[in-house]
């Protein structure tokens, strides 16, 4: 399927999502409560069949945080971008997709460690690089007098 067809197909699968055609890939934005079901549909449906989770990124915007999933299908060789936003910046939480793709274990732990986004139903949500008393460095309001030199 080319990009336009894929966009329409996904819209039929996940009605309450915003589909946008980026320059290279189709972007699907869902609210954070519908994330797990949307991911499951994208994985199990034969037309999309996104069985390879390429990347999960966490981004800190001023008002809330975004989590961006890049999904690829080994069968069809197309890539979809699944985006969601957390509700606010205090105690952000999203459902974990570990049950769908196992590679999410480490990718989500990293986002928890560096940004502070909690993932529900994650098998083992611990800090990864830093120890438990550290803040969340990738946040834009992270202040560290010792390790960061500001001009």
């Amino acid at each position, binding site marked *: 399927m080319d990009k336009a067809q894929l966009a329409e197909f996904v819209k039929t699968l996940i009605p309450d999502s915003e589909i946008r055609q980026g320059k290279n890939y189709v972007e699907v934005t869902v609210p954070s409560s519908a994330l797990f079901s949307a991911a499951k549909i994208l994985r199990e449906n034969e037309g999309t069949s996104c069985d390879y989770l390429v*990347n999960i990124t966490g981004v800190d915007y001023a008002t809330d945080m975004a989590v961006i999933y890049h999904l690829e299908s*080994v069968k069809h060789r197309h890539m979809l971008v699944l985006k969601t936003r957390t509700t606010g910046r205090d105690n952000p939480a999203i459902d974990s997709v570990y049950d769908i793709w196992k590679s999410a274990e480490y990718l989500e732990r*990293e986002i928890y460690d560096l940004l502070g986004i909690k993932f529900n139903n994650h098998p083992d949500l611990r800090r990864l690089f830093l120890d438990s008393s550290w803040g969340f460095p990738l946040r834009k309001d992270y202040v560290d007098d010792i390790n960061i030199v500001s001009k």
Partner: protein
Amino acid sequence: MEEIIKEAVIGEQEEYIINMGPQHPSTHGVLRLVVSLKGEIVKNVQPHIGYIHRGIEKMCESITYPQIIHLTDRMDYLSASINNEGVCLAVEKALEVDIPDRIKVIRTIVSELTRIQSHQLFWASYGMDMGGQTCFFYGLRDREMILDIFEETMGGRMLVSYNCPGGLMYDIHPNFQNRVKAFLKYFRKVLPEYDAILTGNVIFKSRTIDVGKLSLEDAISYGVTGPSGRASGFSCDIRKHDPYSAYDRVKFNEVLYSEGDTYHRYCARIEEMRESMNIIDQLIDNIPEGPYAVKLKPVIKLPEGEYFQRVETARGELDVFVVSDGNKNPYRVKFRTPSFVNLGVLNHITKDFKIADLIAIAGSLDLVIPDIDR
């Protein structure tokens, strides 16, 4: 720290815990493995990482785009040129700059040479881990030839910072083509030696065949890319599926096996060295003429938006994801590194093997720890 060990590792009462600490001759780099054993059998492996976490992604938010390549050099230092290529391609795609052919061909040749030298180091250190310490000297002796070529053209041996947004830092040295051709001629003769010493050795085979099997579904689900994934049958070579630079004009095979055990992960890398040599062969004689760098604005500002570029390093798929808000510093840069995701599968495939197999398996995944920690 105690809670971390207790809560995550101990299963039954008979198990005891061994710590293969950050300083260890066999875990290449500062990787700490907390292994829960029952007798000789491994029940659980918990990697503890972060000993070389430098905050590269955070640092990228306060530097300009050409300065990022000096940081990506140091992520997976054995595929330094390929990491740089990823960032450069992302920036060039965002700026919609047309890169001349000469730059693409030279980038491809340098990337393939980088891949060969990374696999040479893998062979050397894997042989040493298995106990055949002679392999270390033979592998590094041959790797020196590539490093000398790099030094002449780029000024550095390992951390070269050769690719930059817009092209290359310097033009290639006049000796470059001859030296690369001489190296190819020499290495093609020497590679069967590697097979004779290690690949065909009965002891080596009995230690690696059927050890640490990774099935195809698991490889896709855990996202294991690179030679480790291709040995399980996961066709994930970005050079084939999403070609960049000059990969769309060369013919080469993607090395795929279906068994997915340690032996085939090892063999996949040896075969990849041969394929890389074929790629260089096709390109080295016809490097097109042209400029070695495109003139970009002195201050590079990417238009607002998100940009995603995938490249194939020696370890697997590296993705560079740039979120830009129009300034000269990126808003967020995320590097999806292959070793980080490959590490996630270590616990799964080492279950119920012996502790000596843990070394064989961890070595065959070819992890570079700065790549994991960034």
